[in-house]
């Protein structure tokens, strides 16, 4: 539990833009700047009043490694507002919020802009290790004879690039691609291809409905839009999450081949989250910050939790992070009014639900005498999730916290949990309360 009240003042994000096989129209800092300036513009303080800016990013590009500072300056926060960057893979955006909370609890800050971003479409292509060694030898060669000798050893295969994003999505300790860890859960809990595809179709349907009802444009949350439009330098407008498939169907999804465990697996591109660009921000404040700037808080972050688990089962991270929060507050799964479990993979979310029902898993891994039971899926990801709108890794953790609050405000709910699985075998969760 936080040692002092941490208020959510407002939050906004860009539309999540699906990667289309080439670098997208925005750099990560462009996305974070456009969402951030729209958010700050509607709040009653100046960007220079912020105590700090914290941005989570799993793969900042080489020219903006400390992207938190880059964006703070681009937002007009001025030279004196520190900006920094945090990284905890898929939970980087949630880590930014938690780091803000820690600094506010310690009395070091009272008003913080925190969030996450990634432009995965701009993930780099890398030279292979053999190519790097070849180049090193070539540059080390002094005489033309030596150079010719190195040239003679060149193989065309050296040029095959390493796809940066595949590296990022592969566990460096156990060597599994993230989708293979999802296959592990499908196997362990007997989650079928059909169940996964059904879950995916529902995600698309729910996001479609949310877009049609305008709930992401501020309908039901006092007009303060969660999604703000962004514009590229040719004047193209991006107003909606564009990965959603309004016509998503079981028949359509059934045609896709397993992507990670080729041929024999069940996890496809269709029942996994999409590779996407996007940014999400929240403005957090202490009591003092609220008073000083005359702010009107809309929610609180009441508690947060991080957890570690077997990297090959990383998708169960939400179970491990959320369960201690439930225990601390004496809550059952359905005592909450809203749940956001980030949809890295359908198999992974379904795996979490299965684990909470499974007596063996609950006892062995969660230390529970009896399982927590069945989570009401009508409270879970009611506006769809990353399968439909994408998973710009660094941004997702911040997005689900913001969205949990917006769902609570819209439905008149009180408390909700936003939780996310983290590559490398971790989970993060936050308990959010609407005011």
């Amino acid at each position: 539990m936080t040692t002092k009240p941490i208020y959510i003042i407002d939050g906004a994000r860009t539309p999540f833009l699906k990667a289309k096989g080439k670098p997208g129209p925005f750099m990560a800092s462009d996305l974070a700047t456009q969402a951030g300036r729209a958010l700050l513009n509607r709040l009653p303080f100046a960007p220079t009043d912020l105590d700090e800016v914290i941005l989570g990013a799993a793969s900042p590009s080489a020219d903006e490694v400390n992207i938190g500072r880059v964006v703070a300056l681009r937002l007009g926060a001025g030279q004196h507002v520190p900006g920094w960057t945090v990284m905890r893979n898929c939970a980087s955006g949630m880590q930014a919020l938690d780091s803000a909370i820690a600094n506010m609890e310690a009395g070091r800050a009272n008003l913080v802009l925190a969030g996450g971003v990634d432009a995965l479409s701009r993930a780099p292509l890398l030279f292979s290790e053999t190519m790097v060694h070849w180049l090193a030898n070539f540059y080390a060669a002094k005489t033309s004879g030596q150079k010719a000798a190195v040239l003679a050893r060149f193989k065309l295969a050296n040029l095959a690039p390493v796809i940066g994003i595949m590296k990022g999505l592969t566990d460096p300790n156990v060597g599994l691609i993230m989708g293979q860890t999802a296959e592990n859960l499908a196997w362990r809990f007997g989650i079928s291809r059909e169940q996964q595809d059904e879950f995916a179709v529902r995600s698309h349907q729910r996001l479609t409905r949310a877009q049609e009802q305008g709930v992401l444009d501020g309908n039901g949350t006092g007009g303060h839009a969660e999604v703000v439009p962004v514009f590229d330098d040719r004047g193209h407008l991006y107003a909606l999450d564009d990965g959603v498939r309004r016509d998503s169907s079981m028949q359509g999804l059934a045609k896709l081949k397993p992507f990670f465990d080729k041929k024999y697996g069940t996890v496809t591109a269709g029942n996994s989250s999409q590779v996407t660009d996007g940014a999400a921000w929240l403005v957090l404040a202490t009591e003092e910050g609220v008073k000083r700037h005359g702010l009107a808080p809309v929610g609180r972050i009441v508690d947060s939790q991080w957890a570690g688990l077997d990297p090959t089962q990383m998708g169960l991270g939400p179970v491990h992070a959320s369960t201690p929060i439930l225990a601390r507050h004496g809550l059952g799964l359905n005592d909450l009014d809203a749940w956001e479990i980030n949809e890295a993979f359908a198999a992974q979310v379904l795996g979490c639900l299965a684990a909470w029902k499974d007596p063996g898993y609950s006892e062995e891994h969660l230390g529970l005498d009896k399982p927590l039971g069945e989570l009401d899926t009508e409270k879970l990801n009611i506006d769809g999730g990353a399968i439909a709108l994408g998973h710009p890794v660094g941004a997702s953790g911040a997005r689900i916290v913001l969205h949990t609050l917006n769902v609570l405000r819209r439905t008149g709910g009180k408390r909700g949990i936003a939780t996310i699985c983290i590559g490398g075998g971790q989970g993060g969760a936050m308990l959010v309360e609407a005011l």
Partner: protein
Amino acid sequence: MHPAEPIFKGDAAMSAKYKHFRLETDRDGLVWVTMDKQGASTNTFSKDVMEELSALIDDLVAMKPRAMILRSGKDSGFIAGADVEEFKAARSVDDALAIVRRGWDTFNKLAAVPFPTVALVRGFAMGGGLEVTLACKYRIAVDEPATRFALPEVMLGILPGWGGVMRLPRLVGPTAALDIMLTGKTVDARKAKRIGLVDAAVPPRVMENAARMMALEAPPQKKLPLKERMMAGPLKGMVANMARKQVAKRARPEHYPAPYAILDLWQKYDGDPFAPPAGSAASMATLASHPTTANLIRVFALQERLKSLGKESDFTAKHVHVIGAGVMGGDIATVCAMRGLTVTLQDQNAERLAPAVKRAHDLVRKRVKDKYRARDTMDRLIPDVAGDGIRRADVIIEAIFENLEVKQNLFAEVEAKAKPTAILATNTSSLKLADISKKMKDPARLVGIHFFNPVPQMMLVEIVKGDATRPELAKDAAAFVRQIDKLPLPVKDAPGFLVNRVLGPYMANAFRLIDEGIAPETLDKAAEQFGMPMGPIALADTVGLDICAAAGKSLAGADAKPPACLVKRLEANKLGKKSGEGFYRYEKGKAVKGQAGPVTDDLIERLIAPYLAEARKTVDEKIVADAELADGGLIFGTGFAPFRGGPMHYLAERGRA
């Protein structure tokens, strides 16, 4: 003392001799001459400064220093050139020639000193400020946006007579030199390095060291490329003739003799202003006595006066909110963002904002060369569908379509949300402020800030004071207009204000002449012969015939019969350039024009008379405070032939003749 400053031996005795210069000798034996004109914020070469420099050069030659470095002691820049006030005050051609003689001799003396000389230029070096650097052996530019070189003499109808015409072509070659001398355009530090105008462009942190090393090393002078040497040698006549043809496209010799004189002086007299015989077109005497020269100096003074109108308030804006993202509103927003302001741009939905964002990117890409500063500019321009910026803004400008009721409701809403200190402004061109402010609680808060299309190019902005407008608010608005580097002109809230009021009868008359059977080509040619930058018919096509018709209606009243030539084209949906055809047909944005008929003095008179008559009426009716402001407004707002000094001045001169 700044840590990067060289260590000096005291030269107090030496410096005490001069009012406008400081002399310091550093441990390497280099003499640093810092020009710091007494009692002025800007360095200019007035008579006493020039005489002191001349004496200083004599002293230096006697001192035999290892080298000399010339720099400025002013934060505002290097040297702004000659003292224009002195030039304006020159009573006779002889007075003017004495000014030229003083600089010419002094700079020649500087060029002849037997030790290395380095000009260290930070900020502007204009006219004589550039010419003094040309008389030094080396030039170092500090690579900052404020560092700019130019020879703007041509814009005042004179020529760079302090050695510019002689030395600049030798240094950078005829191509770049003629471009600079004939257009008056400015060159930044990086371009100056690229064309060879300076020996190095360096960041401020190493500027002293760069000047010191340049002075100590005294590297050999670079030679011009062969092509440029050919153009300055055997091909000189051909180059000059080609340049004359280029100039003729923009300026007629009878209207603007200066560029032709510059070309003559370079081609035939190697830039020596005292070489041309009396009576020759290239002679300073001929130029100084030409009426254009006095009129262009007058235009310069008018510009300074308009600028001064922005100094009556110390209002500064940080945040501007623009409502209406059409071409006008979008361009206003972009211009503000380029001047460092945070701008929120509002329209009904994001789709309407997208084209404005594109235009903004295109303009910023062209105008802001540094990619980081360009990005900052675009980051400051915030699309704002919800209008959240209204609460934060210091200036709120409405630039939506001309619908009275919509504007009334808008301002009632804006007034409720805006900060009490914010300027609430309308960009209306045809509605009365008193009507627009009807639903406001406090109509004194509304002022007109009226821009002209295309906003990035048009210098003039009318500040419209309604009967109710708080007088200080109009002054604040004028200060804001200066902040975005435009020229404010206070006008009365009467239909058409100044510019459209005068253009209205002029255009209506031109349409009537067309109805009488005169070809558009002939009319436009007549206007150009008079000295207008663009004829009335080409102007109508550019503005849009629908806009012209609407403006005509609002000025002349809805009952007035619109000209037949206009009605005919509107019915055929020929709206001008934007629809591909109006009075002219447009191919790839260029007008396809037929042969113009003969232009008689009588036709010119018939074309211009309504313009002049209306200008006089605006002064009589106190639309602007005086005739001078009418001239300034109409030159910078309509492009009225600058060499004629403005319509009121032209009328007065004609009356005198």
